């Protein structure tokens, strides 16, 4: 049994410890918001937060979650209200096919936690583990910038 906190709830899962976390989430737990794009850490689509830090769930084994706190995109805004980063992605047009989006959103949340006021260069650096084939990245940078700005303006969430 592997015990950890998943999206705010304590869970115990009975899976082989060497199972990839992306498979655990998608296949065993039905949390399909986490995507798999390459299986080798090159695209970032499978990003989740472990103890608040972005991790590639394709290069993480289930046993490593023991005692940790995991946030997937589903846990970011459990109610109807979007997280400010999610809202910024919607409003700034950062979403096209959307397959990279959950991972991008989680990385952006973590990036803004570490650096609440990043410039565009810092945003690009901070997000550079994620590939997007649709947007050319520009509007994703816009969205992270907008989320930071709104936070600075005292957005309560």
């Amino acid at each position, binding site marked *: 049994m592997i015990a950890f906190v998943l999206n705010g709830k304590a869970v115990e899962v009975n899976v082989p410890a060497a199972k990839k976390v992306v498979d655990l989430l998608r296949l065993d737990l039905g949390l399909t918001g986490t995507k798999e794009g390459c*299986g080798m850490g090159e695209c*970032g689509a499978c990003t989740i937060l472990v103890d608040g*830090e972005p991790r590639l769930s394709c290069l993480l084994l289930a046993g490593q979650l023991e005692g940790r706190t995991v946030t997937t995109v589903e846990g970011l805004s459990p109610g109807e209200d979007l997280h400010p980063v999610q809202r910024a992605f919607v409003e700034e047009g950062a979403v096209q096919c959307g397959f990279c989006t959950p991972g991008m959103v989680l990385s952006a949340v973590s990036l803004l936690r570490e650096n609440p006021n990043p410039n565009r260069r810092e945003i690009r650096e901070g997000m550079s583990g994620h590939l997007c084939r649709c947007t050319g990245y520009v509007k994703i940078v816009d969205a992270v910038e907008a989320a930071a700005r709104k936070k600075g303006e005292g957005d309560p969430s």
Partner: protein
Amino acid sequence: MKNLYLPRSLEELWRVLEREPKAALYAGGTDLLVRMRAGMCSPPALVCLERIGELKGLREEGDGLRIGAAETHANLLRSPLVRERLPILASALGTLGSPLIRNMGTLGGNVCTASPAGDTLPPLIAAGAVLELGTPGGRRNVPLRDFITGPGETDLRPREVLLSVRVPGTGAFNVQHFEKVGLRNALACCVVSMAALLAVAGEGVVEKAVLAWGSVGPTVVTCPEAEAVLVGERLSGERLRRAAALVRERVSPIDDLRASAAYRREVAGNLLFRLLDVPPRQPGFPAVSR
């Protein structure tokens, strides 16, 4: 499915290794799990080192640092100590993989993987890093440059584990330059890299030079002849041309998907010219260039 062990101390680790002598060790998984997925290796069991306290931590040691083998690249990059004492390592870490990879990958992993393209290896070797290796029976110290014996090959003995990397401070060098040439600006595998540590006197004369290149040989390439050409003189196009010619003779690169041997050889020399563009600095954080 394979067994996965998550020992919380060296004590526990030694016990696991007794039971599973052929287990593969990993900390970040950014190399091992990729190779396993590709079917390049299939160890009978896995041991994850991320929870072993003795392998963590960063502390001052003389003018240098002792870095726990399982410290992540991201932690090191964030550390003011690393930026102050080993700015050249910080520069290299900033080019490694991506922030996601750096959150997972560790310095010890980069060392033990012993890839010719390992981004931290040229600066660590230039700085004279020494590895602290341990077994249940004892510990030994080995200079990094002796430890890596070939592509993916090290002097790591059975049931031996890399405990820490001890790096002397590079404060004596007021030019610290690292450049990595890759095919893109993030998520790039190194095609050629160069770490250069220079002590430049007030009037511009180079008093000391240490140079190391990555991805141009089976292991990190150094070139004392090129260093000697630079020492005792001001940096000039003429001096650098001579040094570059020596380096190009010294390297033994290969052709691969990313570049030809000829390109690597050429660029290994060319990168020296960038030193004309890096002004000597007082302690601080030199520009990262790639």
